[in-house]
């Protein structure tokens, strides 16, 4: 469902070239829950950004749902993000002056759905994350964990092919992190593919599969092996 072949990403500034990703070969199947770990600055976010069609790359091919993403127009990439991908960020990134309902509504609006369908999906998504009763609240009236759950509702409302989560628990205390993780596992168990960057080994270990990135290079380790690697690290 998601296949990267020989993908490289170089950030160029006037002074330096940063090889953020080097020749990544990777295949993620439908329904997987993949954790991505690695030291800070190793290229995890860059990997997610490429997977999420947020950034373009120069080398290699990236097949998403069977279609090569490389060289697509900006409009086409926007469509892919809108229809196939759900994003969850470390700092939630809710729009502070919009009620929860309207926050979850944002990606659906850009999909041009009817008002009725949007309403159904928003309500269902907020129900899934346990915040159906707070639809008209503003994000600032919620705790961090709740805010992240709203972000998850926003990500799943459009029934994406997969969720990309960049340190979704990074700003949360451990209890809230637990709840968010359980929610993600729950969503995954209903069939949604999830790729999650995390610093937390505990959480990483709960995924089916762990991908490690060191200095832009990806090593893909099946779960059983991953456990050993993490334990021994």
């Amino acid at each position: 469902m998601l296949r990267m072949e020989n993908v490289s990403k170089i950030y160029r500034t006037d002074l330096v070239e940063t090889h953020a990703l080097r020749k990544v070969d990777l295949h993620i199947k439908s329904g997987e829950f993949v954790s991505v770990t690695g030291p800070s600055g190793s290229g995890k976010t860059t990997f997610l950004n490429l997977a999420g069609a947020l950034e373009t790359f120069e080398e290699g091919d990236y097949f998403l749902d069977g279609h090569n993403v490389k060289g697509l127009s900006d409009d086409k990439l926007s469509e892919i993000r809108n229809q196939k991908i759900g994003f969850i960020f470390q700092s939630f990134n809710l729009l502070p002056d919009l009620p929860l309902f309207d926050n979850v509504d944002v990606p659906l609006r850009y999909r041009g759905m009817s008002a009725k369908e949007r309403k159904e999906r928003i309500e269902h998504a907020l129900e899934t994350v346990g915040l159906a009763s707070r639809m008209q609240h503003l994000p600032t009236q919620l705790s961090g964990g709740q805010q992240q759950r709203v972000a998850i509702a926003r990500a799943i409302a459009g029934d994406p092919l997969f969720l990309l989560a960049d340190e979704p628990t990074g700003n949360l205390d451990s209890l809230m992190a637990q709840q968010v993780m359980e929610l993600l596992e729950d969503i995954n168990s209903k069939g949604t593919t999830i790729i999650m960057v995390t610093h937390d080994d505990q959480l990483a270990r709960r995924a089916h599969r762990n991908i490690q990135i060191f200095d832009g290079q990806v090593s893909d380790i099946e779960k059983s092996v991953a456990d050993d690697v993490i334990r021994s690290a």
Partner: protein
Amino acid sequence: MFSYNFHLALKSLKERPALTLLTILAIATGLGLYTTVKTMSYQSGQVPLAHKSKNVFLLQMDNREVTADAVEHQARMVDTTYKDTLNLMQMEMPGVKQTFNWSTYGILNVEDENINPLRTFAAVTNSAFFTMFEPPFLHGNGWDKATEESGEAVIVISKLMNDKLFGGRNSVGESVRINTHVLKIIGVLDTWHLTHKFYDRSFSRARPDNFFIPYSFAMQNGLPRRAGFDCWAANADIARSFRTENTERLINSECAWVTFWAEVPEEKFADYRQQIISYMESERALGRFPRELVMYLTNLNDQLAYVHGRNQFLNTFSVLATLFFAVCLLNAVGILLAKFMRRKKEVSLRRALGAKKKTIIMQHLLEVIIIGFLGGVLGIVISYFGLQGMMSIRLYSSDYTVRVEDVLPYFQLNWTMIGHAFLTGIICTIVASIYPIWRLCNVPPASQLKSQ
């Protein structure tokens, strides 16, 4: 999508009301002043008799001595002598109308003893004046050629005078006295809206005359010719003493004191012109027109363009107002840029969640169009007061000798100007927003979402 973008645009306007207001004010003040000037310029550029202005010509023939100064086209150029006027009036050319006029003055009296005698000016002209220049009649008519030839004492008066002297009733058939002469009223004009009093070639904003008298009567009774005129050669002295001169002496003099007009259809123009030149040549054989045969037939459009183009005040003011508008727009660019750049984070999120560039552009364009719309409305309101102010200055600078009704048309907004201001406001605001919007829509998706 449109309704969503519109909703977002409205929300964003309300989000930072002070910035929004500042942008609207910047555009409105610039546009207000700009529209004030444009309206004054537009109104004073309106041609009188627009439906036939290109066919109505002022005739100027240079009949001066060889040593006279060269004339620039249109500048204080010679009028026509009385004898040339009479000679030209003899020319018959179907489809061509000719009229001429000058100004006289006298003491006017009516039978009603409650009305004090008043010193007044009057236009002296021929019957064609009314058919060529089409003043609207309230009662009666102008005089015809036969009446004119008999030298009958008739007069056409303005609505203003009819109101003042006769309380507004139909005064046709009654009479007025000018000095010792009794003249019968045969016509009362309605208010005659001329954008310029062109027929005396002053192109002033003065109201048209209040009295119109046949030239035959004026000449037979020696009514004086008002205001200065040029005389040359042997008659040079007349110019200095014309007020006391009896008109006898003016009749055959080389003094140019008649303003001569012709209405010539396009297809007759070349013939008419040739006829004038032939006339000048035949007079030259008799020892007149000693200089090169300089002759101008200038239509109303060209005359007005000339007068208008020389309006230093409007020209300077136009440049200043345009510059000021440009400065205001630059200011708006700055405010919009500041306002939009604050929204980088939100835009990068919306882009990540699937908004296309063009959707972001549309959202902000709508916001800007609303700003332009409000700026336009406020700008028009400002220009209304601006025009009122300019009119007050005009009234003041004339020591209140002109009346509001006379100058109002020059300071009046009309739908054309309102539409023009509106479009200008919206288009300029959009232009001002191109750079800020371009910056904003090029914010990479998710680039601003790095964790804190």
